[in-house]
């Protein structure tokens, strides 16, 4: 039994790698088809990964740091999606929870008490809490009123976007696209990172992300809360019958799910920008988090690796554009990866077909 489970988990990881490779393969073919050199795409990716520019042989660690920094919101939004997914919910609302986190962090940064450390801690906490509330509402709507979480999260994404604009336009120094600069005490910059990475934007958010990953792993694998949630996800009726409070379980897990996305918003607001943004559109970290979680099979380690991959793709965009490769190829690769994940069930069907054949053969021989 144990050996079998191990085999299964390994094959899940292997499928993810396969799916990613197929996404890249089709993306490469597409680039070649439109008459561009796919090698340039991989040069850009390699530079974003290692900091080494193959064309002129120069090394710049800044690229590595930027890749890491881009990964942070991807990983957190992936955890958000993954957490909900374990209870059998599809949280498309990561984007809205992220936007609310970002908005509240900006608000506290501009209006909060300018006391060192306390200031940014308050801003990040505000982001986490509002994310949790924004997600928790979905859980309550789902558990109490049976409103499909797919529809309600999509609606809440747009409510969040416009609400964010209303709030941010009232903040000090607001123009149509930005607010006044944040006070120094609100920033989560890390001067050590800046010194060793040629002023990259890598900031303390990465530590918060690591803590979040550990918390995710701990709740999922080591606590009865995680057990109850997973049981709810596998079979709602069985969970109810064995005394797990399903309504509470769903609401709490949506709230925790939202907290991860809210944290992502807070980190991007205070780490990657020096001023508040009045959003004109979505940042899409929340949507991409869906793909991140799916590639990572919703495990802590898998989601982290998938988030790093997405951070790499995002950081490579500008480099690709500089090499005449349309940067949108990265979106295409991401979309293809998700589609291949959906098609993954074909593998299961194929396995069933093989098993059936095998069985028929054995019976036939007898």
């Amino acid at each position, binding site marked *: 039994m144990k050996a079998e489970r191990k085999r299964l988990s390994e094959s899940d990881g292997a499928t993810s790698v396969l799916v990613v490779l197929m996404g890249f393969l089709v993306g490469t073919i597409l680039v070649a088809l439109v008459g561009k050199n796919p090698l340039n795409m991989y040069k850009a990716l390699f530079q974003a990964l290692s900091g080494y520019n193959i064309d002129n042989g120069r090394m710049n660690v800044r690229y590595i740091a930027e890749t890491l920094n881009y990964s942070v919101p991807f990983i957190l939004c992936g955890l958000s999606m993954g957490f909900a997914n374990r209870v059998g919910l599809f949280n498309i609302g990561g984007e809205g929870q992220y936007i609310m986190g970002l908005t509240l962090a900006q608000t506290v940064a501009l209006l909060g008490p300018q006391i060192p450390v306390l200031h940014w801690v308050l801003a990040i906490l505000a982001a986490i809490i509002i994310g949790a509330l924004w997600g928790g509402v979905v859980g309550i709507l789902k558990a109490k*009123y049976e409103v499909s979480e797919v529809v309600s999260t999509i609606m809440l994404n747009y*409510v969040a976007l416009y609400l964010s604009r209303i709030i941010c336009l009232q903040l000090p120094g607001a123009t149509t696209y930005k607010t006044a600069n944040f006070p120094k005490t609100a920033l989560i910059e890390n001067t050590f990172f800046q010194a060793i990475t040629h002023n990259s934007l890598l900031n303390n958010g990465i530590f918060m992300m690591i803590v979040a990953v550990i918390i995710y792993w701990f709740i999922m694998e080591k606590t009865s809360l995680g057990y109850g949630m997973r049981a709810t996800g596998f079979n709602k009726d069985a969970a109810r019958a064995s005394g797990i409070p399903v309504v509470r379980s769903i609401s709490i897990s949506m709230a925790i799910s939202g907290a991860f996305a809210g944290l992502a918003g807070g980190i991007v607001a205070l780490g990657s920008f020096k001023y508040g943004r009045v959003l004109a*559109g979505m940042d899409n970290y929340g949507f991409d988090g869906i793909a991140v979680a799916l590639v990572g099979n919703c495990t802590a380690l898998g989601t982290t690796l998938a988030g790093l991959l997405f951070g790499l793709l995002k950081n490579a965009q500008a480099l690709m554009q500089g090499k005449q490769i349309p940067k*949108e190829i990265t979106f295409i*690769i*991401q979309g293809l990866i998700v589609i291949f994940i959906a098609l993954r069930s074909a593998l299961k069907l194929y396995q069933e077909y093989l098993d059936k054949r095998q069985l028929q053969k054995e019976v036939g021989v007898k």
Partner: protein
Amino acid sequence: MSMILGMLPSILMIVAPILITAIGGMICEKAGVVNIALEGLMAIGACTAAAAHVLMEASGMNHSLSLFLALAMGFVTGGLFSLVHAVAAINLNADQTISGTGINLLSSGVTIFASQILFNSDRTREFRMGMQTDALGIYPTAYIALVVVLLSWFVLYKLPVGMHLRACGEHPGAAESVGINVKKMRYWAVFTSGVLAGLAGGCVVLTQTIQYTSNTINGRGFIALAAVSFGRWTPLGVTGAALLFGTAQAFAIIANNIPALKVLPTEVFNILPYMVTLAALVLFSGKNYAPSAAGKPYEKGAS
């Protein structure tokens, strides 16, 4: 009252594409497949129509013919991309939300990638002239939407094929047992939702803007999806829901000209349709109107 009449053409302009898409989504769910890729399919249709119209316009083609062909191409590409969802959902029993999300992500890349290749820019080139309004100030898209609604009602409720389609969404096992080909029926339903979403995307771009950008569709497909549940999976209900959302959106534009409403930020009106949907979903919860097999893969022979 005259104010609302004055608003009517712009309301219809906004409602038409949402309604066309929502009817497609409704047909798809009636057959048992949930299609959250509507947003992406609209984007693909819009990009195709915009690009086709610009290129044909530049080649000096007759204006009406060019518009018609552009819409037709949006129609076809929307249908082609929806087949990805069909294969995943119907043949491979994939999670329908995942494959829909995949198409949505893919479309945001494919459309802009195509613009980069065709026009060396992150948007399609501007066309000179889109669709023109008739004597009443109404765009032809409103009439297209009307035809789509009436046709969907007629097919779904008055023809045997419509009843078969609905059976596939309510109880596919029973449908199969009386000789209905469930998979084929679901294929047609998904394809229909794809072509309608593609057509609607073309309608958006040819009436409301002058080019395709990553912001052109901006959630219209998702609103259509909500209109399906809000309208309780009936053509009349979906039409009402789409009208409500469209009016709320039109209001956001028109409120700028009304002094009493000018004090409120336009975003308040932008939020309206989404809040209304949420409130409606909560208020009308309790009884589930959704087709009972929607979203569930169907395996022949499995109970």
